[in-house]
């Protein structure tokens, strides 16, 4: 445009096209800058400023906007405080275990779902955990991991299997009422030696009223009879406690209990208690005997694993995490699988390779780029893991389950606001993630 100048072409002056026709270099940059401005503004406010501030903050004292300069002391704290070193150690375990497992499980699912009917249904089911927030997953798994098999699904499964082989006894919660009844081979035995004509009183307590066998009647002390050993097994408790070792009014006999008479460690006779808890061994020859209740009566139901206890919490968390991410790995790998040239597979099969050989020597190498994408993405995810640990691990074991991101949260925001060490942890985590990120970016560039 030549505004104001003399021109030989009047029509052009009448309708000059705007800058588009011959954009200046400056204009070009300006346009670019205008389009970039919102993104740059947001990035600098939400990314650049916090990153720079965090790095600076990590060299200053705990409280306030900046506090005072402390040099690298925060970083020293990071590597000398036991709770923080536990977090670093746990993160190392996570990185060593989880990405490999997620990739492997994803690969298995991807290969298997390729060949089954209803593949879409299977894939959806496996991918579904991705749609649930990690926090909700944590809460759900925490319930499933409850130790009490009556509450936790995982241990309920264990109990169902275990119950088949060793069922619980009728009086699993009972314990002796006096020191005269002692444990023996899983059962209980009366310490006092017995002779024919003796009476064996086996008092038991800690039996909830609703677990007293049906049909129980008031307990009685049977009369002594020559040539016989008699006795009672009863719930040695009445409201208020009563006197231990004495059969009193209001105390019930325990029917259906298997009682044994032992001589020199061998069982010579067996009996079952009646409704009032009494039992009789007849035709007992003279000698010294002991009476007791067999182990099967007291067999405890399986108590379950302490998944949420300090020793199992890390694997428990990993299982839940793998459950979430296996679906992601499967979908990515399945996409890679479907893009794989079929003729290579067919060639391998034609050449007589077994399915396993085809998988091992052809499929996996061809999938290697996809597998490494999944693997590297998982390393980054696992380094930053936070929410599942926060939601799943009970407070009492959070220190055992601690990871770097969680340690940062507790140090900076929960532990009296130590923003100095908190920032140092954040910077450390940032430094751990960077090399993996660079690796990923380089890979992307190569592929483009």
């Amino acid at each position: 445009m030549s505004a104001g100048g003399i021109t030989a072409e009047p029509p052009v002056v009448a309708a000059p096209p705007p800058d588009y026709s011959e954009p200046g270099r400056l204009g070009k940059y300006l346009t670019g800058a205008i389009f970039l401005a919102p993104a740059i503004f947001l990035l600098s406010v939400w990314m650049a400023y916090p990153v720079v501030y965090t790095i600076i903050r990590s060299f200053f004292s705990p409280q306030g906007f900046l506090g005072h300069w402390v040099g690298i002391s925060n970083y020293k704290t990071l590597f000398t405080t036991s709770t923080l070193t536990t977090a670093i150690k746990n993160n190392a375990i996570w990185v060593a275990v989880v990405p490999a497992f997620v990739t492997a499980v994803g690969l298995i699912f991807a290969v298997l779902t390729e060949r089954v009917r209803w593949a879409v249904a299977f894939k959806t089911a496996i991918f579904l955990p991705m749609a649930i927030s990690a926090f909700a997953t944590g809460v759900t798994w925490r319930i499933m991991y409850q130790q009490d098999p009556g509450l936790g699904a995982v241990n309920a499964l264990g109990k169902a299997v275990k119950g088949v082989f060793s069922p619980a006894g009728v009086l699993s919660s009972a314990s002796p009422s006096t020191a005269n009844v002692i444990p023996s081979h899983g059962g209980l035995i009366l310490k006092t030696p017995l002779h024919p004509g003796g009476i064996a009183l086996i008092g038991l307590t800690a039996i909830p009223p609703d677990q007293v066998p049906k049909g129980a009647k008031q307990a009685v002390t049977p009369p002594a009879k020559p040539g016989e050993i008699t006795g009672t097994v009863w719930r040695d408790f009445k409201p208020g406690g009563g006197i231990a070792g004495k059969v009193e009014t209001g105390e019930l006999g325990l029917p259906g209990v298997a009682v044994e008479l032992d001589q020199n460690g061998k069982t010579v006779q067996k009996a079952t208690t009646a409704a009032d808890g009494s039992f009789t061994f007849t035709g007992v020859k003279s000698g010294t005997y002991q009476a007791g209740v067999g182990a099967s009566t007291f067999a405890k139901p399986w108590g379950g694993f302490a998944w949420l206890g300090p020793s199992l919490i890390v694997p428990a968390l990993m299982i839940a995490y793998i459950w979430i991410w296996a679906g992601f790995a499967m979908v990515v790998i399945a996409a890679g699988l479907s893009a794989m040239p079929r003729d290579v597979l067919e060639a391998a099969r034609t050449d007589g390779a077994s399915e396993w050989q085809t998988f091992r020597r052809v499929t996996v190498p061809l999938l290697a780029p996809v597998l490494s994408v999944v693997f590297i993405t998982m390393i980054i995810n696992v380094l930053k893991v936070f929410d599942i640990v926060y939601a799943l691990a009970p407070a009492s074991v959070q220190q055992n389950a601690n990871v770097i991101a969680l340690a940062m949260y507790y140090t900076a925001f929960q532990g009296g606001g130590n923003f100095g060490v908190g920032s140092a942890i954040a910077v450390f985590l940032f430094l751990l993630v960077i090399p993996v990120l660079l690796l990923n970016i380089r890979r992307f560039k190569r592929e483009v």
Partner: protein
Amino acid sequence: MKRKWLAAVPLVAVLAVTAGCGSKSAAPKASGVAGAQKTLTNKAVSGTITFDGIWTATSGQKNFADVIKGFNKLYPNVHVNYKPVGDNLPTVLATAVAGGRPPDMADIAQPGTVKQFATEGKLKPITYASGVVSKNFAPAWRSLGTFNGKLYALVFKAANKSVVWYDVPDFKNAGVTPPKTFSQLLADAKTIKSSGVPAYSIGGADGWTLTDLFENIYLRTFGAAKYNALSQHKIKWTDPSVATALKTMAKIVGDTSNIYGGTTGALQYGFNDSVANAFGSPSKAAMVFEADFVGGAITSSTKSKPKTGFNTFTWPSITPGPDAGAVEIAGDLFVTFRDNPAIEAFVKYLATPQAAEIWAHEGGFGTGNHNVPASIYPDPITKATEAPILSAKSVVFDMSDSQPPAFGATTGQGEWGLFPQFLKNPSDVSGIQKKLESAAAAAYKK
């Protein structure tokens, strides 16, 4: 309603003078002209107060809104903008204060945090309200709000932590009655165990349930003065008194077979689990050691009914003496970050019995305001838990809340990390004392 209204008249007259509301013609807010007209409403004071609080829609926001409504009847032109921040309040507040933009007022449950803010000069003293506060609160309560010699906080809401909750059918089956002394408690626990149900349900996964247990034992063994000394770290955690209290505590937490789930179970169950285990159907344990809010947890998570299903008794005494009935409370300390006539009017209003009665009547509320009649509480159980707060000669604040949060109030760290360790191994008293002391020393050094 009428009674409350009449009681409000003299108060409003006082407020009208002190807040400096003039006659109708006096336009400036704080002119100081004492033309006290005996009007019920005070339109001259206006403004907006931002208030960050812990109560959310499910936990008392509505009750506090009613308290604000009561305030607006007197001061229709002051708008209180309540923000329900929830459990992350300490974090949100610490960040807001560090960033220089705190709310006008906030509700802080940790005296340690209030002290820190007061020392840093972030808070405004509320000395203007000391007249109303003295009229309604005993010295023990005023001292809970006094930091560095000045009144900074008003304990608006208090929870009685010196109570024990029990399953009524379990006690009936065992034939025991609520114990008055600690030795009787241990004897009852033994009887309860013989009856077929463990005596204790312990939510040890939450470290704070264990610190509360320890604190009640320490308070009842050594009294309020020593308790406060320990809570300010004037006594070290390696002190013999701590060893004595821990050994007493071990009589409960070390009685493994008398705890539902044993030690491993107690370490995995949180507070809510411990309540559900004890008061669910069937009841799996007889007693829960926790504060007045257990009542709410029982009614919301089980079908147990008050009196017939669950009930409460005061923490049994350990050492006879004046502090045998001392009460440990947790509470909401109201603090101000700014100062203006609207805020002053609101703080003064909150210190009156009228403000407390609104919420007390609705339930789930305890107060140290001795002009609030016990008859205001809606049910006998609330009355039983909240009345001792008023009658107690000595009142102490939850120790773990009074300490630096890094030691007293951080999941898995300090007390909340070490007391579960003690639950795991109650025989190692001196070992846990050393760990507590080094953690406390580190937290107090900051």
